[in-house]
Structures are given as C-alpha cells and as structure tokens.
C-alpha cells in the first residue's frame, strides 16, 4: 500500500446518486500499485483539503485496467462523497492504494461462483467476477438495488454470466430481496461472494450457511491501514479476538466473523 496521486480522467453519474470515476496513474510507482490490486481491495481516498475532512473515505475497486487505470463506483451518501462527486476531470486525487485484503482467488479452486451484491456493494463484485471469469470460472450473479433508477452495470454483469436483477419495489427485474431469488440463478456453485448492506450480508450468510463463501464488510474507518483499531469486527474464534476490516478484511470467509 502506498500513497499515490491519481488523475481523474472520467467522472459520470451512472445511476441515481451513483458516480463512476476513472483514475489514471501517471507514475511508474502508481502503475505498479494499480497492477497489483486484488479484487475486494479498496482505495482510501482523501476527500478534503486542510481541515475540511480529517477522515479519508474507503471505496472499493470496481475494475482495473492494465494501462494503469482503476475504476471506482460510489454513492453520494454524505458530505465526503458529495465533495468527491464534484471533482473535475484532470484534477488529482490523493489515495492510499491498494488497501486491505481481497478475495483469496489464487487459493480457491472452483468451477462455479455465485456473486450476490446489494446496491453499492455491487462494484467490487464486478472486478472479482471479471478476474474469475478470466480464470475460467462460471459466474452467476444476483444483484439487488433500491429501484430501477439505482441500477447500474447490468450489461457488464450479463457479459460475465447469468445475472438476475432485483429491486426493492420491483420497478426493475425481480421484486424483493436478493435472498428470495438466489436459487433462481443457481443452487449449484462452489463458492459464493457477497457484498452489500449489513442486513443483506446477514441474510445471505444464514441462507447459505451450508455453503462456502466470502463476505465483504463495511465499517467506519480512521486510518484505513491497520493502525487505529477503529474498524474491528469480532472473529468467530470464540477467544474474543478481533479482526481489522481495513487490513485483515474487508473480505472475510463468511464463517470467520460475527456480523
């Protein structure tokens, strides 16, 4: 992980209050840091100058391009992401890159993978799906959004494999919660990978308790690099031990942490 200045080369709203941003490295060390990003890792982004925002914002990597590009997708939920959405093309973003521990894809043997994403938890699954597909894995996805206006990356996921879209209100795709539609795409997979709001993670984990899978969790962060103990989550080890989401995570085996 290093601190890099990346240039914003594109920024556009791809769904309601949802911004896609392309960041380009202009130095060899920046390129190097981008080239080693693993699916599931995140950027820790400085959103303000001086004393405007003392905390960085963690945003997952949605895609990586060998030419030194990294794509992020974020939802405008507060002051920091609002500010970030107002960045102009050509300006430089100060990021810590790459942060955290991603999906252990090198270690996993699989033929079929189920991706389950909710809202702003969808982006990291895209990069994961892409890398897995390149490795020959069959990808199935169930993606949940609030309403039709919030849907993004449908086409991209369709290209990875069979994809079911779900909206809370049924305004697009299936209606309801992702957990209600999991079996519509497949019951036969080696691993599931899920990222989304805490409630969804809990529902998915308990629904798929007999399966092997990985979850990606969120928590308010201080440092983002493992130094401040802000972002802990209890492990299931039973010894009271805690994992750091920013360093040991954000990806954990579903059975390893207490949601």
């Amino acid at each position: 992980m290093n601190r890099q200045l990346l240039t914003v080369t594109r920024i556009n709203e791809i769904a309601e209050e949802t911004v896609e941003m392309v960041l380009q490295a202009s130095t060899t060390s920046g390129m190097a840091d981008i080239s080693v990003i693993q699916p599931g890792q995140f950027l820790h982004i400085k959103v303000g100058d001086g004393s405007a925002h003392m905390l960085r914002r963690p945003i997952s990597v949605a895609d990586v391009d060998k030419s030194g590009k990294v794509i992020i997708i974020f939802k405008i939920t507060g002051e920091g992401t609002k500010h970030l959405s107002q960045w102009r093309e050509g300006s430089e973003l100060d990021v810590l890159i790459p942060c955290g521990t991603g999906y252990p894809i090198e270690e996993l043997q699989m033929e079929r993978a189920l991706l389950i994403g909710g809202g702003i938890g969808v982006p990291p699954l895209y990069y994961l799906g892409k890398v897995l597909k390149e490795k020959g894995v069959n990808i199935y996805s169930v993606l949940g959004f609030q309403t039709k206006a919030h849907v993004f990356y449908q086409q991209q996921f369709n290209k990875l494999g069979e994809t079911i879209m779900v909206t809370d209100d049924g305004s697009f795709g299936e209606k309801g919660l992702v957990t209600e539609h999991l079996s519509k795409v497949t019951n036969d997979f080696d691993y599931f990978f899920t990222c989304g709001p805490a409630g969804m993670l809990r529902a998915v984990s308990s629904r798929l308790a007999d399966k092997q899978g990985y979850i990606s969790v969120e928590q308010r962060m201080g440092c983002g690099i493992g130094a401040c103990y802000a972002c802990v989550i209890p492990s299931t080890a039973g010894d009271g031990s805690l994992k750091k989401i920013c360093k040991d995570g954000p990806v954990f085996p579903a059975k390893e942490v207490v949601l």
Partner: protein
Amino acid sequence: MISLQTSLPGLALDNPIMPASGCFGFGREFGDLYDLNKLGAIIIKAATKQARAGNQTPRVAETAAGMLNAIGLQNPGVKAIIEKELPYLSQFNTPVIANVAGSSIEEYVYVAKMLADSELVAALELNISCPNVKEGGIQFGIDPALAAEVTAQVKDAVMKPVYIKLSPNVTDITAMAKAVETAGADGLSMINTITGMQINLPDRSPTIANKTGGLSGPAIKPIAVRMIYEVKKQVAIPIIGMGGITTAEDVLEFLLAGASAVAIGTANFQNPLACINIINDLPGVLQQYGFSSVEEAIGGGMEHAGISRS
C-alpha cells in the same frame, strides 16, 4: 542550518515531531510507508495489564475539522506488546515513549514497571485522561489528588522519565498540571481528546456505539494552545503539545505557546505522511518567522519569555 533538536527528560530528540498515542499503532503500518528513523520519537498505543477488546463499533465519526473516537483502549495487553510489538521498533534509533493506561493505581504501576523494564522504552506517558472507558481512567484525569497519587506511585516504581497526559475535560487544567508536577512528573503531554458526541440523524442515536467519543483534530487546536500556554506559566516541567496539529506552522504555534515537542494524531489519518511532511517543512517555517532553532521558539509566544512584541 536550522536546528530541530529539542531535549526533554530522557529524550534527546533530533526533531520535535512524534506521532501521538493511538494514532500510529505500534509503528508497523507507517513503517511500511516511510523510514521511522526520521521521527523525533514515537508514542505507541496505550497498554493495559490485560488484553482489552475495546468498545463496540462504530468507534469513529467525522466532525467539522475533527473527529470523534471511542476505541476503548483495545490492546493485546502489556506482555504481548513487549513481546510482539516492541521488537519491531528495535530496528530504529527513534526513542519510543510507551503510553500506559489503567483503571487502578496498581494497574498503572504494574504496566509502567513492565514497560520501563524494556530497553526499548525511553520514557512513559501515563494516560490518565482516556474518556472512552467506563471504569477508572478518566477519574484520574479530573481529580488532582488522584492524578498526583498515580504519578507518585509510578515514579516510585520506575527509573525512567514519566510524562503525564492531561485531560482537557476539566475546569482548571493548571491545577492538574501543578499537582502532578509536585508529585514528581518529569513532563506533561497535553491535550488528550475532549468529550463530544455526534447524533446520526437516520438512526436517531449517537453515531459512536459508546455514545460519546473524544474530539481531536484542528477543531480543538485553539483549546490545546490555550491550555499549554496557561500551564507553561505555572509549571517548570516541559510539555509535549498536541491537539489538531497538521502543519509545520501549527508546530511553531505550539512551540511559541510553550511546548518543547509536539505529537501528531488525527493528521496521520488524513495524510499518513503527515509527520514526515511536517518535519521536512519545519526548518523553512522556523526560518520564515525568524527562528534559528526549535529551542529558540519554545515559549516565544509568551510575554514572560521576554520576547518583545512589536
């Protein structure tokens, strides 16, 4: 050549910049980013007798020009710190200041002794001011008699210099400072965080699970500067100043107020290279304002220091 050296009891520092306790872990993560030899000193995360799990999450929140935290002293216990964390720091020449927490005088003495016995520890910083733990801790930080008592007992037990970290959550910080000075403190660290709260509107409840948290960052800088200035007039022991420092200009402001060295906390989160940048910028800033050394600037903002005001 602008000299950045500054001397405090037990600490002959190449420069006055050190990361503040709790904002730098035990150095490892920042050691991946830059050479820790460049730091004046390192204050490590608080140690308690037993391992502590800390508070529930969320533990941090952002505020205007600041942040709240209620980590709750999570740490692996003093023994594990000595065995597993300190060895990493032995590869650097940078003096290590160990932060000590506890909920009883016995615990403070126990932890302080263990840490003082380590060759790697140059000095102790007694955190009598952590506002984020239920039992004890904070009581020592608001009662001059208790603060003096824990200071005296730790001083009796260890041979290394002891700095007392004062809480700003008091009516009269000079009374606290004088009490611990009389009890034998070698120096002061100030200020710790100020108790605050943020209410999350969608949840209709405090953002931080512990409800209250400690406010740090630039927001509290004027309070820190005022307290250091007030205390410096009343005590002879040196002060490690902290509270909202993000730039070399801020460092000079703290030196002028009376600090002999400074610690950087929250700024490390916004910019993990903050300490290094500040160290690099400091000579230029000292020169710009007519100082040839850090030592010359210490207390230079106080009338009684004899600096004429133009």
